[in-house]
């Protein structure tokens, strides 16, 4: 992203600056994220770029450089603070690196050079500030640059010159002076140097270091936040995140410009940009992986399962995969509700009873019986009501679930008769919609393969002997149980042989992904025959429809537009189609799920999700925090915990509970709560 090309200048800010310029003798500029900025989502991505290059240059032994480099900086800061020093140097950081990255000792000089090269390649001048410097110099004002940075002054001056600040003024860098802007000592030093009478105007992005602290030393300030990068202090770091990082940076600068000019953006507009950066990386990387798998396995037909498969099917067609592979895609109106219940209606096996009786969230007896169409079984209802204390009683304990199962076993014939209409309609719909071929692909987001298992059993019952292959975002360990009968199961971003704790990012993203991939329709609750054709009966509801129009549709539209452009032209902005790998997709998911920005948290956190297949209870992904509710009980644990952290009385409780639960995940994510 060369900023100068097509970068619309923020004239409002420049006018503000010009108005203040006349009252200043000296104009001071912050350096990073003000005068110059990195063309990536977060500062740590510069280390990721260095790691990418070092991996090619040196090999696998430098894997993990980005994280280790960041930790080494923390170590060096801790050591310096113990000696009463405020700032550290580049050399001190690298001296602290070998304990964090075994084997690094041999390559320290190459690593230093790679980091500086990565910074140089990512940094570019910010047009508003370049213009502001020009205006200040033209007005005869003294221009200086002030930075809190571990890099030596000479290096920063080089960056500034490369970015177009040739012949710029004095440079005050904390690694040279030992004083920080953030603590105020750098400003005291500057005030002393320029004299009490000097009128100074400072431009910077940080609310403390660039605004509050200089004001304490009688320095006028003007905030410039357009190019402020996201801190992203959590989530994994590494080269895989670079495609998303570049795409997100490109969009976020545009977003910040627009929000300034238009007086703030609403969540719909945010979701549009989110689709063009996050959506395109995830969906695009999955579609490329899917296309390769379909060709390798000789799949004849693809079934995209409702509802999460909707966006993927659209992307498959728009990306031209159907034309390239010759594999047709069908959107199958299927849901856990109809497939699981239709399968249960065939034999009422123990597994089927499990699916009927167990719920993800606590449900009352009425809901459990109603969703299976069993409220009409009077004897069963009367018996369970008596045993469990009424239709409103919540099914909580394993003993209560077992009680319900036993009752259903006792009333087996009545239960099967009640489920027969749904079973027959489902089988009829499958005969009509599923092509009779040998190698059938099933596409869905994940996570336990239960839909594929039910589909495989129902197709066998219909005498179809197609070999099913399921292609998913990921599968969680319990999916292993389905491998004996469901067919082949594979995930692009993870699979059931990866422990749950290692899929923490995906676990956090489940509800986000499911909602963002669904169409503007309710879940399939049954099928009806009209003119000898089965059509799905959808359980539409107002919550889902409203939320889709406001948040999800803008995301899906921009994702598909970006997919179209990317797969047609080979690139879109800084993103190349060949960069879209499963690793890139997973890194993008992990980053947003484990370390969201304030905008992401606000927009995604309000999505309301129904976890159970009855779709009766909708809860926001980030609900209002109660002191006794653990974030781990929410649909987006990390998101909820981060949103609740601001409430100080809950902070320690939340931090404790979450840290304990995620103690095996990556150090960066844990750090957000310590």
């Amino acid at each position, binding site marked *: 992203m060369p900023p100068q090309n097509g970068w619309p200048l923020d004239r409002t800010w420049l006018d503000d600056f010009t108005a203040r310029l006349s009252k200043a003798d000296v104009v001071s500029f912050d350096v990073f994220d003000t005068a110059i900025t990195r063309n990536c989502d977060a500062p740590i991505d510069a280390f990721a770029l260095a790691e990418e290059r070092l991996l090619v240059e040196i090999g696998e032994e430098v894997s993990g450089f980005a994280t280790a480099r960041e930790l080494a900086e923390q170590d060096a800061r801790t050591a310096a603070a113990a000696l009463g020093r405020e700032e550290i140097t580049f050399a001190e950081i690298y001296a602290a690196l070998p304990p964090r990255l075994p084997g690094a000792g041999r390559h320290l000089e190459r690593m230093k050079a790679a980091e500086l090269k990565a910074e140089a390649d990512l940094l570019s001048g910010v047009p508003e500030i370049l213009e502001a410097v020009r205006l200040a110099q033209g007005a005869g004002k003294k221009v200086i640059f002030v930075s809190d940075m571990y890099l030596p002054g000479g290096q920063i001056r080089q960056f500034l010159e490369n970015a177009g600040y040739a012949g710029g003024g004095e440079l005050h860098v904390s690694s040279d002076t030992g004083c920080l802007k953030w603590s105020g000592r750098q400003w005291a030093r500057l005030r002393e140097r320029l004299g009490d009478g000097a009128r100074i105007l400072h431009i910077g992005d940080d609310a403390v270091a660039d605004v509050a602290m200089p004001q304490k030393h009688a320095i006028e300030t003007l905030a410039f936040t357009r190019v402020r990068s996201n801190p992203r202090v959590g989530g994994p770091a590494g080269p895989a995140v670079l495609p998303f990082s570049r795409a997100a940076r490109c969009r976020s600068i545009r977003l910040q410009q627009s929000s300034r000019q238009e007086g703030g953006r609403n969540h719909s507009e945010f979701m549009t940009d989110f689709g063009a950066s996050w959506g395109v990386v995830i969906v695009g990387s999955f579609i490329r992986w899917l296309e390769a798998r379909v060709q390798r396995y000789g799949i004849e037909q693809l079934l995209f399962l409702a509802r999460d498969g909707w966006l993927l099917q659209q992307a498959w067609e728009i990306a031209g995969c159907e034309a390239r592979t010759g594999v047709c895609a069908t959107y199958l109106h299927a849901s856990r509700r109809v497939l699981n219940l239709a399968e249960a209606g065939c034999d009422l096996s*123990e597994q089927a009873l499990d699916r009927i009786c167990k719920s993800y969230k606590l449900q009352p007896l009425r809901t459990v019986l109603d969703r299976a169409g069993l409220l009409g079984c009077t004897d069963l209802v009367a018996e369970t009501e008596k045993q469990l204390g009424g239709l409103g009683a919540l099914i909580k304990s394993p003993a209560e679930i077992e009680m319900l199962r036993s009752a259903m076993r006792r009333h087996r014939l009545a239960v099967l008769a009640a489920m027969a209409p749904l079973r027959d309609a489902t089988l009829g719909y499958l005969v009509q919609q599923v092509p009779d071929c040998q190698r059938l692909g099933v596409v869905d987001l994940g996570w336990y393969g239960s839909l594929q298992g039910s589909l495989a059993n129902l197709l066998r019952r219909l005498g179809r002997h197609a*070999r099913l292959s399921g292609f998913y975002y990921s599968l969680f360990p*319990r999916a*292993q149980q389905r491998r004996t009968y469901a067919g*082949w199961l594979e995930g692009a971003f993870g699979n059931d042989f990866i422990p749950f704790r290692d899929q923490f990012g995906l676990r956090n993203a489940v509800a986000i992904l499911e909602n963002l991939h669904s169409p503007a329709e309710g879940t399939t609750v049954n099928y009806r025959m009209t003119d000898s054709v089965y059509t799905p009966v959808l359980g539409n509801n107002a919550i889902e429809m409203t939320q889709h129009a406001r948040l999800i549709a803008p995301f899906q539209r921009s994702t598909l537009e970006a997919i179209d452009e990317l797969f047609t032209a080979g690139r879109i902005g800084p993103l190349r189609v060949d960069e879209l790998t499963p690793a890139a997709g997973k890194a993008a998911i992990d980053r947003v799920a484990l370390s969201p920005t304030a905008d992401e948290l606000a927009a995604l956190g309000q999505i309301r999700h129904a976890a159970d297949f009855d779709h009766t209870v909708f809860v926001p992904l980030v609900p209002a925090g109660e002191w006794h509710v653990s974030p781990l009980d929410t649909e987006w644990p990390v998101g909820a915990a981060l949103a609740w952290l601001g409430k100080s009385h809950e902070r320690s409780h939340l931090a404790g509970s979450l840290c304990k639960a995620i103690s095996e995940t990556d150090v960066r994510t844990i750090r957000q709560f310590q």
Partner: protein
Amino acid sequence: MTEDPQLSRLKPRPNFYPAYDSVGDSPRDVRPTVAVIMRTKNRPLLLHRALSSVLLQRYDAWRLYLVNDGGDRREIEEVIARYDMVFGDRLTVLHHAESLGMERASNAALSEATEDLVIVHDDDDSWHPEFLVETTAFLSRPENRRYVGVVTGCTVVGEKIEQGAVHETNRTPWQGARNVIDFRSMLVENMFPPICLVFRRSVVDSIGGFNGALPVLGDWEFHIRLLLLGDIGFIDRPLANYHHRVAGTNSVYSNTVIDGNSLHVRQNILLRNGVMRSALQVQPEALGLLQPVLHALADIEKRLERIEATIGKSRKPRKLRKSLERARLWWLDQTSKYAPLRWGRQSLRHFRFWLRTRPIRRVIARTRGRIR
């Protein structure tokens, strides 16, 4: 590069470290090929999982040698037919009309395999998708040439089979190997299950294959022979899963280590007897040293049992504390009596005496004119 003959003369003999110098013996390139040996017999329920575990490896330069050791041939063919598009040409199936036993089944596959590295993947175990990425990378590094193989950390997965499905009951970290494999510990018990180990194919030329005479514990015996040749490295990541069905399964789905526990105990004794017999045949005079040491250990064992019994009987905490204190003192005493530190303690006594008498010795030396 030929070695300087002068330096060559200085090479330690016998060479204790490193024991295995495999220069020119390590995988030829950075992507070594791996032979995965899997033995199975009428366990389709578990076989699906095991095959998927191999097929989902992120490292794909492997070939699976599936040995049907006397099981239903048609059943196996039906299972593998479901995965043929995923396997491509990376599968060799060997059918034995009658069961030859686990170790002979492994040898049948081993004799076919030509890959650089070998691993035995039991049909009930599983791997993390990065298992082969990590192990092949470890054995490919030049500095790791001295290792004859490598093991990873392991998770013991408890499970039960109900209504035709496998249900996980618990997961615990494997408590055996936590570092480079200690030969001494390996002589006492097997430090890791086979699912954790990748070894170099070339070692088979030196130590042979698996011992077909052993009905169980063939893996332990093989690991001991492997350690006779060189060290086994360790990767501290739990990348292997050792699956245990709960005791009492008593079917084709049983673990030999669980339901065949008594068989394991007997075979353990027989194997140790064999190892000791083999050593004593070469060096019979070692018996003179071995017998008193073993006698002393047996004596310690008896006393410990007595103390444990006393602690078990004592109800009052004060009495228990006293018993424990007594046991601790007794143990310290026994340790000092039997441990090799005895020599060190005696030497220390001489040194202390030498220090104490130094002033007197200085006076004597001065009178004799040896020092001023």
